[in-house]
């Protein structure tokens, strides 16, 4: 059990292995799209890990990248269609980043490093845990960006009106792209303080 927990902290895909950063930062201006994105990546990662692991002995090694891409894009299209039909507003907000899950290095990385050499069930587990590790960072970043940038959480106002009346201002910079990078840098710093004592 313990070896599956690595992705949540010690081997976190974003913080330690710097994988899948691309989509991680773009969707974190608010909490809701971040949670949806985290969920989609977890589903795609787990399912494609499982499938690739099932057929791992029949894939010719020379064309494995193409096979992996096809399996992943199949699941991404499924997720994309589901999002469009059930949470249309979030799907609009995520725009191209749902499609970009295909080239998310976490998924390709896990397929290469784990699913090709392990049995289906452990691969499924590994996919879920990596997806969650990715989601964890997304949610933390989105929490701070939405709270400090718009004064809301999940679209509900949390900063009381009396603060605004007293002169409190939202930090508009938080919503802009550069701040996401700086926040991740700070989170890595904090994480290194805690884990590498």
């Amino acid at each position, binding site marked *: 059990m313990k070896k599956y927990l690595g992705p949540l902290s010690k081997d976190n895909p974003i*913080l*330690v292995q*710097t*994988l*899948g*950063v*691309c*989509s*991680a*930062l*773009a969707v974190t201006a608010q909490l809701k799209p971040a949670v949806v994105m985290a969920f989609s990546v977890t589903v795609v990662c787990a399912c494609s890990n499982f499938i690739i692991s099932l057929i791992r002995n029949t894939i010719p090694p020379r064309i494995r*990248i*193409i096979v992996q*891409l*096809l399996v992943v*894009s*199949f699941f*991404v*299209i499924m997720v*994309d*269609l589901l999002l469009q039909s059930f949470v249309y507003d979030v799907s609009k907000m995520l*725009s*191209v980043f749902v*499609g*970009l899950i*295909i*080239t*998310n*290095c976490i998924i*390709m990385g896990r397929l290469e490093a784990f699913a090709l050499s392990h049995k289906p069930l452990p691969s499924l587990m590994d996919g879920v845990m990596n997806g969650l590790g990715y989601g964890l960072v997304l949610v933390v970043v989105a929490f701070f960006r939405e709270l400090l940038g718009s004064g809301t959480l999940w679209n509900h106002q949390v900063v009381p009106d009396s603060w605004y009346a007293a002169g409190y201002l939202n930090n508009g910079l938080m919503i*802009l*792209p*550069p*701040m*996401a*990078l*700086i926040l*991740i*840098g*700070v989170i*890595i*710093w904090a994480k*290194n*303080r805690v884990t*590498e004592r």
Partner: protein
Amino acid sequence: MIEIFLRSVFIDNMVFAYFLGMCSYLAVSKNVKTAFGLGLAVCFVLTVTVPVNYLIDKYLLREGALTWLSDRFAATDLSFLSLIIFIAVIAGIVQLLEMVFERYLPALNMALGIFLPLIAVNCAILGGSLFMQERNFPTVVHSLAYAIGSGIGWLLAITAFAAIRERLKYAKIPPKLQGNGIAYIITGLLGMGFMCFLGM
């Protein structure tokens, strides 16, 4: 057209505004020379794949795109296939380019060498095609201008970042922040710099 070009280099810069291709951006920026090589490769592949995907999107996938075949297809909408087709086109073109370079341009092949295969799974490339689809450019030339612009933007970003990173060795950074932590923060600061182009 020039506006599209300049916009995609500076304002909608792939790295700083959309974080595309961050993985290789962080991994291959240890020195300026390799960073420049990867930047060139990305630029090149974008320039080839985006117009090709534009044509495919316009004449095969979009709703009503197949009317040139027969009027019966006027209501056919294949856009749900675009993800899988785009990625297949990109993987195919990268493979093809690699073979052509190996045969006819060995010097360029040596320079781009290991980067070419990596590029098939670089999100900047697929992202370029997806943004192209979202923006509805009127002609293929517009999409070409967009592709070259974003490629150069990416090249600019990774070269600048690699140059800064080389100097970082001599800077005093808190020990726990070294490596990835400071790399993210520098990218953020560079991005803030690029935000100045917003009013252009």
